[in-house]
C-alpha cells in the first residue's frame, strides 16, 4: 500500500503546470522537504522499474511529470508546436558565457567574445533564456544578466550546479599546443 503522502504528491504533481518546489509540497503534505525528495525519488524509481512512458524529474528547482525521452517520436507527432528554433553558434557561445559568468553585463560578455554582444543578448532574452538579474553597483550601473528559470527547464536541469564544470571545456594540451604553434611559440 502506497503511503498517503506519496499518493498526494502524485495527485498534486498531476495538476501542476510547472515544477513544484519540495518546500511547497512539504507544506501541503505535512512532511519535511527532505522527505518530499525521498518520496519523489522513490516514485521516480518505481515508474522506471515499471517501464512507464513518463518520468518524474527534478527540474528548475521542483518536481514535474514529463514524457519519457524514448517516446519522443510519438509525442512529437502529437504536440503541434514545433521545437523552438535552434540557437546560432554565436548565441550559444554567448549563452555559455552568461551561464558560467553570471551575473554579467553586456560589456563583460563583449570583452570575452571580442565583439559587441547587444544583438545576441537581445535574441537570448527574447527567447527567454537570459534575463536581467540586477544592476552593477559601480558607476554606470550596468544591467547584469543571468540565465532564467526557463533556461533550466529547457536544459532539463535542476539548478546551475548541474552545469558541467567549465574546466571540462578548457582545450586539452594538444589544442593548446596547436594554438601556440600558430602563434609561433615554438621558435624559441
Amino acid at each position, binding site marked *: 500500500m502506497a503511503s498517503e503522502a506519496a499518493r498526494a504528491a502524485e495527485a498534486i504533481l498531476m495538476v501542476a503546470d510547472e515544477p513544484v518546489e519540495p518546500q511547497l509540497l512539504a507544506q501541503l503534505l505535512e512532511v519535511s522537504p527532505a522527505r518530499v525528495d525521498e518520496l519523489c525519488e522513490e516514485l521516480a524509481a518505481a515508474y522506471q522499474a515499471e517501464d512507464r512512458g513518463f*518520468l518524474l524529474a527534478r527540474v528548475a528547482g521542483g518536481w514535474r511529470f514529463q514524457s519519457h525521452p524514448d517516446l519522443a517520436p510519438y509525442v512529437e507527432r502529437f504536440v503541434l508546436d514545433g521545437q523552438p528554433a535552434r540557437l546560432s553558434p554565436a548565441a550559444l557561445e554567448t549563452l555559455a558565457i552568461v551561464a558560467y559568468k553570471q551575473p554579467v553585463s553586456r560589456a563583460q560578455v563583449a570583452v570575452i567574445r571580442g565583439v559587441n554582444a547587444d544583438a545576441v543578448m537581445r535574441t537570448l532574452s527574447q527567447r527567454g533564456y537570459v534575463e536581467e538579474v540586477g544592476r552593477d553597483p559601480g558607476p554606470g550601473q550596468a544591467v547584469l544578466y543571468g540565465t532564467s528559470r526557463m533556461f533550466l527547464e529547457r536544459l532539463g536541469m535542476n539548478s546551475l550546479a548541474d552545469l558541467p564544470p567549465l574546466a571540462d571545456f578548457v582545450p586539452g594540451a594538444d589544442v593548446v599546443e596547436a594554438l601556440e604553434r600558430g602563434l609561433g611559440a615554438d621558435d624559441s
Partner: protein
Amino acid sequence: MVCGVGPEATGILRTVSYAVHTDVYEGPVDLLLHLILKDEVDLYEISLSRVVDGFLAYLDGLASAVDLEMTTEFLVIAATLVDLKARRLLPGPVDVEVDEELALFEQRDLLLARLIEAKTFRDAGNAIEARSQAASRSWPRTAGLEERFLALAPDLLAGVTPADIHAAWLRVTAPAPPPPRVVLDHVAPVRVSVGEAVDDLMARLPGAGLLTFRALTDGLVDRMEIIVRFLAVLELYKQGLIELGQAVTFGDLEVSWVGEPGSVFAGADAYEG
C-alpha cells in the same frame, strides 16, 4: 591549389556564411582560421588583405541588410588572423634581452589565453546545445487544474478594471529606449582598401626613411582603417620593400624603407579596382 574541406570541418561551415576566395584557399573564413591552427594552410600564402578587401566589397554589395552577427564574427576572426600573421612576420626575438623575451612571451600568452577562452566557451555552448537537444525529447505535463478545482482557484482578475488593461497595454507599447542601432561605423565608412593604403605608403615611405607605425596611422581613429593600414605594411614587408623593427617591446613599430629607388609594388595588380 585549393584546400579541400574535410568532414571534420563541416561543423564549422555553418557558422559563417562569408566565404574567402584567394588563390590558396576558398571557403568560409572561420574554417580558414581552423585550418591555419591545424597547420593545414600556410599563413604566409594567404593574402589577408584580399580577404579583408573582399569582405568590405561584400558588405558594400549587401547595401542595407547587413547581418551584424556575421560581420562581428568576421572581425574577430580577421583580427585573430592579423595578430597571428603579425607575430610570424615580425622579426623574432633574435638577440633581445631576457626581460624583453619574457615580455614577448607574456604578450603571446595573453593572446593564447584569449584564444583558449574563446574555444572554451564555444565548446561549453555546444555542450549546452547538446543538453537542450536531449532535454527537448521530453515534454512536461502542463495540463493544469481539473475543472472541479477551477472554482476554488482565486480569481486572478479580482479588482482588475478595464482601465488597468488599458494601462498595461500602454506600458507594454510605450516607446522603448531607442532600439540599439546596428553600429556599422567601424565597417561601412571604410572606403580605403588595402591597395589604396599600399599606394599611400609607397608614396610616403621612400622619401621618409624611417617612420613609426603610429605616425603612419596618425589621424586614423577607425580600428578597421588601422587594420587595413597594418595589412598594407605587412604586404610591403613581404615584398622586401620595408624593414620592420621595434626598439623596445611594446614600443612603436618602426617602418623603414629598404626598397630600391623606383621600386614598384609587385602585388599591385591584385588590388586594381
